[in-house]
């Protein structure tokens, strides 16, 4: 494996932060080496500085995309940490449905939900399955718009395709839920069209301005800000506050905290979970 020099740790670390917002601890050189080594090799680079230069000069941004894919952590699973999904099912979604009840019975209830770091889609599909189980067959009365965004092109691609191998499926997904919402495809499982139709995925760098995102009723931003510096975390949650409806709900990772990060949100406890609302 190609070794990284102290100077490269600094320059490549800064480059990764610039393109993705992800902060890699320079004391963990193995993180750089294990994740970028094979990309450097693939492009015939003699050093990480060489890879850095090639990537900057690459107009197609192919190398940059590869680096982002390699650096971003796609550790996710269906119904990761059951707390937030219980919270959504028992409290947040029913309350939001009531809050958005239309004036005329001929109109639909519009609810917009955003998974800000959707990775390979498991979280957003879990939300979609939760909604489906709540509203049952009354789909005509509701218009749920679910958006998933992620910085990694390959993660967005897999999420959009909605196909998961047995290892991805086995984790977190109860058998009845699997059989209800997925179709077997050889050794893999594909999400059914009725669930797939509820969601949309696209690429988004959380460090850039959220132009034209509009307002969301519920935002999930779980286990992504932990990869950012405090300064970037502050900016991110401030932008999320701008994108959240005044009576909207924010869910962050179960081990994350907004204390000292963003004072625009107040935490509220429900059973074993915490969610946030704007002050």
């Amino acid at each position, binding site marked *: 494996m190609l070794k990284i020099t102290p100077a490269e740790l600094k320059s490549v670390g800064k480059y990764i932060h610039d393109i993705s917002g992800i902060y890699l601890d320079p004391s963990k050189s193995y993180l750089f080496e294990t994740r970028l080594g094979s990309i450097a090799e693939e492009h015939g680079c003699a050093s990480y500085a060489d890879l850095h230069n090639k990537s900057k000069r690459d107009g197609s941004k192919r190398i940059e995309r590869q680096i982002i894919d390699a650096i971003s952590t796609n550790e996710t699973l269906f119904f990761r940490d059951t707390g937030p999904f219980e919270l959504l099912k028992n409290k947040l979604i029913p309350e939001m449905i009531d809050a958005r009840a239309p004036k005329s019975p001929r109109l639909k209830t519009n609810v917009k939900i955003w998974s800000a770091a959707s990775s390979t889609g498991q979280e957003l599909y879990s939300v979609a399955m939760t909604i489906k189980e709540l509203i049952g067959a009354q789909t005509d009365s509701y218009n749920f718009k679910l958006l998933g965004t992620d910085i990694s092109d390959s993660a967005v691609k897999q999420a959009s395709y909605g196909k998961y191998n*047995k290892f991805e499926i*086995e984790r977190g997904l109860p058998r009845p839920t699997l059989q209800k919402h997925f179709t077997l495809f050889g050794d893999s499982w594909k999400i059914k069209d009725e669930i797939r139709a509820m969601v949309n995925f696209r690429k988004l760098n959380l460090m850039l301005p959220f132009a034209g995102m509009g307002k969301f009723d519920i935002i999930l931003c779980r286990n992504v800000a932990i990869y950012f510096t405090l300064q970037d975390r502050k900016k991110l949650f401030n932008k999320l506050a701008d994108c959240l409806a005044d009576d909207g709900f924010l869910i962050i990772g*179960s*081990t994350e905290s907004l204390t000292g990060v963003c*004072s625009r949100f107040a935490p509220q*406890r429900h059973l074993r979970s915490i969610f946030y609302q704007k002050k």
Partner: protein
Amino acid sequence: MNDLTILVVDDDPVIRRLLEQRLGKENYEVLLAEDGYIGNEILSKEHVDVVLTDLMMPGDIGGIEVLEFAKELERNIEVILITAHSSVDTAVEAMKKGASDYLQKPINFTELFLRLEKISTMRSIMRNAEDLRQAMDVTESAAAYTIQNLEMTAETLQSKLDKIEDTLNDDQMDPETKVATSKDIMNNWS
């Protein structure tokens, strides 16, 4: 010591005996079935890691049906099909249905042992990953509990500070009342 339990399903007694001997020598636990019916029966009763089944067997239950039954029963089960040269296409079809691999007759044991070793390695990596995840879940839920408590406490303290700040900035109050009110806010733990 190999920790895999292998079910051999084959109607040919010679192949059954041969596999039993060779696999047994490598310390694999071996179960035998002379047709698909018995194979499926064993599958529903015993814990099996790998099924080694002939593709073509007399009766309604051939290798494909054993494969489907095994996969339906336990997603983690690995199925290796034994095929005659002429039925390779069927074996490839079976791979699409979730078979791990196929072997052509006559069985090359070096090849078979290599595949079993790979399955074994894969299983231990998966077990290790599962252990790590469980350890992570335990750590995460303990941390989440602590962090949630801190988050709620921080919120309570912040709102007290805000109230005290308002009190201290209140021009209508004399200094003594400000101090008394601030003390009240501080002591009122709600």
